[in-house]
Structures are given as structure tokens and as C-alpha cells.
């Protein structure tokens, strides 16, 4: 039991809090220097491939997910416990101090950092009453014992201190709440298409432990158009300049409205945020099979691979007969072919082209198994060849049609942009923001409020009324303490109050 008490005393000491703070700073660093799985899973794998010697060790230490690792949690949990253990006793002391009047007037006022003494023509009662009046007007809390007055101000300093620490704990509650109930989903929507807020529609979805699918607000968003503009000048050529999505929203209640989503202006639909977080190109194609039937028609989402939107994608025509048709290739918004091969040199669609390989094979049975729309499963397929045995590969611009050796054809009708929308709900965010604002308020109170104690004693003597006044500051600097003491003494009738002691600077 004694051991527990010693441990607790250690944990809640300021020294331990200080060391824990420094440890927290230290353990947060590796996560900023190494790639982190929750943010960039692909870079983690790249890094591990590049550094095989330490990859397993780092993995075991949790260095690729520092902020979710047990040792990081251990540090901040210990710090929180230390903080609460530190602050709860201080709340009790503070609550007690609030109920009590200021401390009694000390016997000797001359030893205080600032003090003054002299005689007054007033009576003892008049002097102390006048002094108390002045102190009250200056918003001191006062206490009168006979002919002495004790006063204190600056209670808000400790209040601010407690508020700061409590709001820190409150912020952690907000973060925890948010982690449990928040959700975040990403979905790619091509211009002209729509998205409904339900789990099956998302390409990627993550949520906290307390999330239920019923929490999703029902609404539908049509992306009517997406505008992207890029720098065409010499400086930062190709840098993004404008992203805007013009949408229509149908609320769960039935009403419809139009809206524009921009990068810093998310759309808020019934409390759910919709952000614009990415964009790319979707070539619009028509695949006609060897029998002359349309096997596929519509936009196909291609995924950007670099800053100039060299985009990779596949066009699948499972309904093509007599053989399955699949196309794999690149969409290049501003295409050139040089010694580095075909590539895009500008992110905007100035000279769009498709570079495509054709795969074909026996018609596949419907398995119902989900398949990625961004990659072609090549089991049983082979590349289409011309009668003289060459692999079929071609480039095609919008408006062109390519006739294939087997009698089928691919028409590149047009291109559209797609936008990646992130739909998220962060129910605890207001608490996090509110508590940090409170903590700023608290720390300003605790740093700028200067607690001060003042005393005055009036004693009847043979030579008249003897008045002593003194003061004490409980903060670092004592600006204006001497003035306060002098003013207090003057209020009690001291004519030319001469300070008996200098205030330490």
C-alpha cells in the first residue's frame, strides 16, 4: 500500500509530468520521419523493400504505425493520468480557498516585499472602513478583523490553470468520442453520375467501433460537372489552380438543391461533410463486338499515376461475343511520345489520347465474385494478335474508332472528369475545438492574472492612529504592487506614504 502511494506520488509529481512531456515529444518524432501505414500504406511497403535489413525490426516495434502503437498510447495515457492526479487535488484546494476569506493580517507588515507605515488623522474604524471600500472597488476580496483589513485578488489565475489542464483532458474525451463514432468514406463519381450515401456505394470506408450503418444520413449527390484549371505560366507550370464540382443534392427529406463544392468549401448535407479530395479522367468508350452488338458503352474511370495525370485503367466488355474482350492501357491528357515512351506532359486535357493493349479469351462464367474495376484478371486471356502475329496495340484520340482484327471495334467517343468525394461525419469535433479554445483561455488566465494580497492595520497609539500597510504578489513579477500599497495607505489617511522597502524587480 505504501508502495502504491509512493508510486502515485511519483507519477503525479511535476517532475514526472515534465519528463513524460519530453518523452511524448520524443516518441512522436519517428512517425514523422518514417512512412506511416494509416496515411501511406504503399510508401510503407516501398520503404520496407528498400530497407530489408531493418524492416522486420521496425515492423515489430510498430514504427510504421507509431500513433496507434501501444507504447505511444502508454506515454499519453500515463501523461493523462498524471495530469488528472495532479489537478484533482488542486481543484479541492482551490474550492476550499474560494470558500475561505483572505488570510489574516500578519503580525509584522514591514517584512513584506512592499510596505508602508505612518500616522493618520482618522479614527481606526474610519481608516479600516475607507481602506476596505477602496479594496472592494478594486475588486479585491476582503476580510475585516477588528481594525485590520486583509484583501486578496487574482483567484482566476488558479482557475485558469485548472481550466487549462481540465480542457486538455476534455479534448482527449472529444478525440476518443470522435474516434468511436466518426466515419469516413471515399467514392469516385464521374461527371453526370450520382452517388447515394449508403455503404455499398463506397470505394473505401472506415468507421469507429460505435458506428452503425443506420448512422448514415440518406442523401444523393449528382455531380453535374467538375472544373479543373492548371497553371499555364512559366512559374509552377502545371500546378493546380481551380477545382470545383457543381452538384445537385437530394436530401433524405425529399428537397433538392444545387451546390458547388470547392477544396476549402466542403458541402455539408444534414450534418455530414462532403469534401473534394481528388480528381482524374474517365474516357467515354464504346466497345462493339464481332457480332456487331454493343458490348460496353460509357465512361471508364482511369486512375492517375503522376502529377501530369498519366492515368492507368482497364475497359472490360464481359458481354462481348463470341469472345471476352478486355482493354488495358493509359489515358494521357496531354500525350507525347518520346524516348521515355508515351507519357503526359501536362495535367489538363490539351491533347488527350488512349494507349491500349487488347486482351481476349473465352467468355467467362458469371461467378458473382467481386472484381476490381481497375485491373484485368488475365487468367485464360491472351493478347490479341494481327493475322501476321503482331500484338495489337494502338493509340487513339477522341472521335476515332479502331477496328480490331477479330471484327470488333473500340470507339473513343469523349472524355469526362471524375471527382473523388470524401463523405465524413465527425461528431466529436466541436468538443475538440471547444476544449482547445477553453485551454487557450485557461492558459491566458493562468499566465496573465496576477494574484495579490494586501493588508492594512490601524492601531490607536498615544501619538494618534498608526497605520501600516503591506502587500505580497504570488506571481513572478510585481508590477504595481508598491503603488497598490501606497494607494491603500493613502485611503486610510496616510498623508505622504513613504515606502519603507523597495519592491524587488
Amino acid at each position: 500500500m505504501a508502495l502504491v502511494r509512493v508510486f502515485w506520488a511519483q507519477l503525479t509529481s511535476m517532475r514526472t509530468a515534465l519528463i513524460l512531456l519530453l518523452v511524448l515529444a520524443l516518441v512522436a518524432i519517428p512517425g514523422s520521419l518514417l512512412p506511416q501505414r494509416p496515411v501511406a500504406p504503399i510508401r510503407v511497403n516501398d520503404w520496407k523493400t528498400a530497407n530489408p535489413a531493418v524492416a522486420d525490426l521496425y515492423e515489430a516495434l510498430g514504427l510504421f504505425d507509431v500513433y496507434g502503437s501501444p507504447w505511444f498510447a502508454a506515454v499519453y495515457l500515463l501523461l493523462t493520468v498524471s495530469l488528472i492526479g495532479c489537478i484533482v487535488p488542486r481543484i479541492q484546494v482551490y474550492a476550499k480557498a474560494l470558500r475561505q476569506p483572505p488570510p489574516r493580517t500578519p503580525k509584522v507588515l514591514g517584512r513584506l516585499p512592499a510596505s508602508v507605515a505612518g500616522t493618520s488623522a482618522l479614527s481606526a474604524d474610519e481608516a479600516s472602513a475607507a481602506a476596505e471600500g477602496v479594496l472592494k472597488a478594486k475588486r479585491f476580496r476582503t476580510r475585516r478583523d477588528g481594525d485590520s483589513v486583509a484583501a486578496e485578488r487574482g483567484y482566476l489565475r488558479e482557475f485558469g490553470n485548472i481550466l487549462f489542464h481540465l480542457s486538455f483532458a476534455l479534448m482527449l474525451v472529444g478525440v476518443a468520442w470522435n474516434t468511436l463514432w466518426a466515419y469516413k468514406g471515399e467514392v469516385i463519381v464521374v461527371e453526370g453520375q450520382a452517388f447515394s450515401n449508403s455503404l455499398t456505394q463506397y470505394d473505401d470506408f472506415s468507421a469507429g467501433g460505435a458506428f452503425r450503418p443506420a448512422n448514415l444520413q440518406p442523401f444523393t449527390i449528382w455531380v453535374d460537372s467538375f472544373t479543373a484549371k492548371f497553371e499555364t505560366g512559366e512559374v509552377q507550370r502545371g500546378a493546380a489552380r481551380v477545382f470545383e464540382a457543381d452538384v445537385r443534392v437530394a436530401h433524405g427529406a425529399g428537397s433538392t438543391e444545387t451546390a458547388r463544392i470547392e477544396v476549402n468549401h466542403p458541402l455539408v448535407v444534414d450534418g455530414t461533410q462532403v469534401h473534394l479530395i481528388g480528381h482524374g479522367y474517365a474516357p467515354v468508350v464504346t466497345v462493339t463486338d464481332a457480332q456487331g452488338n454493343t458490348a460496353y458503352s460509357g465512361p471508364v474511370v482511369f486512375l492517375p499515376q503522376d502529377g501530369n495525370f498519366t492515368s492507368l485503367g482497364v475497359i472490360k466488355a464481359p458481354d462481348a461475343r463470341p469472345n471476352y474482350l478486355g482493354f488495358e492501357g493509359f489515358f494521357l491528357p496531354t500525350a507525347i511520345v518520346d524516348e521515355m515512351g508515351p507519357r503526359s506532359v501536362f495535367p489538363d486535357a490539351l491533347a488527350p489520347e488512349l494507349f491500349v493493349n487488347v486482351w481476349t479469351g473465352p467468355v467467362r462464367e458469371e461467378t458473382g465474385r467481386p472484381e476490381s474495376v481497375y485491373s484485368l484478371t488475365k487468367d485464360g486471356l491472351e493478347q490479341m494478335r494481327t493475322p501476321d502475329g503482331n500484338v495489337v496495340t494502338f493509340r487513339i484520340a477522341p472521335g476515332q474508332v479502331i477496328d480490331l482484327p477479330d471484327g470488333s471495334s473500340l470507339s473513343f467517343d469523349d472524355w469526362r472528369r471524375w471527382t473523388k468525394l470524401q463523405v465524413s461525419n465527425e461528431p466529436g469535433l466541436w468538443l475538440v475545438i471547444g476544449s482547445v479554445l477553453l485551454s487557450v483561455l485557461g492558459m491566458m488566465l493562468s499566465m496573465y492574472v496576477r494574484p495579490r494580497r494586501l493588508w492594512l492595520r490601524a492601531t490607536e497609539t498615544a501619538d494618534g492612529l498608526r497605520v501600516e500597510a503591506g502587500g505580497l504578489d504570488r506571481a513572478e513579477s510585481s508590477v504595481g504592487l508598491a503603488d497598490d500599497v501606497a494607494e491603500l495607505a493613502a485611503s486610510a489617511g496616510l498623508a505622504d506614504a513613504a515606502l519603507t522597502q523597495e519592491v524587488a524587480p
Partner: protein
Amino acid sequence: MTEAYSSLPMVLSAVIYLLAMTAHAIEWASARKPATDREQVLVGAGGPEVAAPAENEYRVSLFGRIGVALTVVGAGSHIAGVVLRGLAAGRWPWGNMYEFITSSLAFAVVFYLVLVWRRGWSWLGLPVTLLLSVGQGLAVTVFYVAIAPLVPALHSVWFVIHIVAAAIAGAAFNVGAIAAILYLIRDRAERKGAVGGYLARLPKAAALDDFSFRVHRFAFPLWTFTILAGAVWADYAWGRFWGWDPKETWSLVTWVVYAAYLHARVTAGWKGTRAAWLAVLGVVTFWFNFIGVNLLTVGLHSYAGI
């Protein structure tokens, strides 16, 4: 064309700050002299080269005043450069590292000159002009980029709120760290009982410590607000308020180190020297966050090249 009008005063300010630093260096060196002269007298050498103290004092204050005057001129040129940069770009001038350094140092020099004007604290001269000439020098040589509009993620009112708060807090952290370093030097000298030369011109160690604390006390809530404003902005722009982006992580590291500093000032065994070292550590993390994170790590804050 307007771009040149902005670059020229910026380069000019770096040169003028360098001259100001030279003047302050001469001031320091002159202040050192009496101590050595006195030693010579003690050994009995004496001679005509021993300068009269009054003449020396005149030299010290002359070069001190030249240093401050040059800093005022440099600051005028510097601020003109920042304002013209903003006018030429048609937006607030803190969209990349070059612009942030120059704007942040403009806040720092104004802060310093106010201290000189109101409190007569020209003893900050040498370290502040050192910071200014190194900072402006690096800005115009290494970090310079031509004017360009902002990427869409920066089109926000938070672009003003978040970055101005960061620049002012950063300026204050730098001034606070300078005071902390001077405190460490002066404190050491006081302990050894050898407060001579330039050190004698500094305020007492306790006063330096107090000043350093006041500056940090101003900067810390502002830095907290900077992080909060950044989080709110991140929520608007990227759809999450905290994502352990390297910049976010290091801003937290900086915050935690300064929180430790504030606690250390009231903890037995830590107040004084160790607390001052924490203030120095804090400014190191601030600079790393600013330069190291942009150049060494991959994150969402690296949108404008350097």
C-alpha cells in the same frame, strides 16, 4: 516587373542587416576592451595604447546606435519588400517558404525595434541582427522562388489566420530563445563572478530569464491557437482535423517542448538553466518543423516546392 521591385528591397535588407550586425559586433568587441586593458595595467605594462574608458564608452555606444539605426533602415527595406511581394502576387505574401521566412522575420524585427524604442533594449542587437541577416540571407539565396498563385488548398480565410498566428508566434519564440541563450551566458558569468565586457551591458540573469518567460508566455497560447486554426483549416481542406502529417506532428512536438518549458519554470531542479535549455530546444524544433519537414519529409504541407 513588380517582382523585381519586391526582390531588390529584400536583398538590400539582408545586406543592411549584415552591416548592422557588423556594427553590433564592433560594439561588443569594444565593450570587451576595458577588461583586457585593465589586466595590462595590472601587469604593469601600461602605455599610450590604453584607451581612456570614457572614449571607449563613446565608441561602444556609437556603434550600438549605428547598429540600431542600420536595423531601422534594413527593417524599412524589408517591410517594403514584403508588402511589394504581396502587391505583386495579389495576395498575402506567405504562400511558400521564402515568403514565410521574410514575413516572419519582418514580425521579429518590428518586435525587436519596439523593445528598443520602448525599453531601450538594444543589448538584443547582435543576436537579433545575426538572426535577421542569416534568415534574410538564406531567404534571398536558397529559398527564393518566383511569384505564383496559390494551389486551391490555400484559398481560404485560414490562410491569413493560421499563418499570421504561426509567424507571430515564431517571431516571439525566436526572440525568447535569444533571451534564453543570453540568460545562459550571463548566468554562467555571474556564477563565475566574471561579468565583464559586453556581458556587463546585459540585464541581470534573473531579468533576462523573466523577459524570456514573458515572451514565451505570449507565444505559447498563440502557438496553441495556430495549431487549432491549422486543425480547423485541415478539416475544411482535407476533411480531417488531425492526420499526423509531419508538419502537424512537429507542431505538436514544438508545443509539447514549450509546455515542458513552462512547467520547468515552476519545478525545483529545473527552473533556471534547464528551463532555458528547454526554450532553446523548443526553437530548434520550431526551425526543424519549418525547414527540415519541408525538405526532408513527404507531407501535405509541401505544396509550393520550397
